[in-house]
């Protein structure tokens, strides 16, 4: 596989994968594991797990690490560029349509329905995310979840600071307290 073929493969995947989160993972697997046979399933799962150590969208991490694995650092950079170009092009076009048509009665009506729908989807997503968090170290996790929820709801403390505090709490707790002692 040449660099260009890799670039276009990621570009294509990034153009046809709707929604965020893990939706891109099965599509990348289909292309590089099943169709081209360039990676083993095992390696693919490792890449996805590694991507989670980094902040930012999973799609970008997965594209970067796939490029890194197949083509080195150049591949990694090309993977990132190929992953961000399609949303950059599509959403900037969509932006101008939004500005032109959002005040139109019918488009506005569709957007009202869509915003109701996305609110329902979000509530489900929060529930789905909360469940696995509370499987282990239940009290520790529930305490952090409640603390973050209340701090964000009731105070105007910067969200970034809350996130930093959460990360530091995790590091301190799991460094200084033996794991089986954390409730």
């Amino acid at each position, binding site marked *: 596989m040449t660099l260009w073929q890799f670039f276009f493969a990621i570009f294509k995947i990034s153009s046809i*994968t*709707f*929604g*965020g*989160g*893990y939706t891109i993972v099965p599509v990348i697997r289909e292309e590089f594991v099943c169709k081209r046979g360039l990676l083993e399933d095992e390696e693919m799962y490792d890449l996805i797990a590694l*991507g*989670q*150590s*980094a*902040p*930012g*969208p*999973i*799609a*970008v991490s997965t594209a*970067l690490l796939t490029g*890194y*694995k197949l083509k080195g*650092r150049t591949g*990694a*950079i090309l993977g*990132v560029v190929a992953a*961000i170009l399609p*949303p*950059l092009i*599509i*959403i*900037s076009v*969509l*932006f101008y349509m939004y500005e032109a048509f959002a005040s139109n009665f019918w488009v*506005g009506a*569709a957007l*009202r*329905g*869509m*915003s*109701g*729908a*996305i*609110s*329902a989807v*979000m*509530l489900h*997503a929060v529930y789905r995310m*909360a469940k696995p*968090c509370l499987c282990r170290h239940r009290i520790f*996790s*529930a305490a*952090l979840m409640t603390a*973050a*929820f209340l701090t*964000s*709801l009731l105070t105007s403390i910067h*969200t970034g600071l809350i*996130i930093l505090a*959460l990360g530091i*709490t*995790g590091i301190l*707790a799991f460094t200084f307290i033996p794991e089986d002692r954390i409730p």
Partner: protein
Amino acid sequence: MIFWQLFIAFLEVGALAFGGGYAALPLIENVVVNQYRWLTLKEMTDVIALSQVTPGPIALNAATFVGTRVAGIPGAIVASTAAVLPQTVFLLFLGWFLFHGGRITWINRALRGLRPGVTGLIGVAAISMLLSSLFITRSPITIDWVAAVAFLLVFVLHFKKIDLFKLIMLGAGIGLMGGLVEHLAGF
């Protein structure tokens, strides 16, 4: 100046959005809606909804949308680049180490604090999106019944594991039908 603001704002979103999926949402709301007021909460809710029916992750879609509004296409490029820069640098530096079986234990430890906490933050973002989509005005309270019907129907249908794309499109369909009813009833 405006490019620098865009760059810093989305650098923060990119650097702190641990956990994937909706993890960027509370950060985007904080920076874009509360701090710089580039979008209203209603517009952000529209962007998130449109994000689910267009390609690309939420953070990048928001970066492009906000960047284009504030400073045109160059703004979109600056904001998107800033959003992916932290993870790119991080993974490029640590890629070799990670590929050779290295594990960064402090990150795994941080994630154990981040995952539940970020879920709480997303909960707050979800509630504020819900309120902004269901209520047209707070005083006197006026409910957007079209959004409310879409919310209830999608909330129930979500239990049936229907594709996200179809659910959001269903919301658009309900919106159009509601619009038709309002149009005919002459609201």
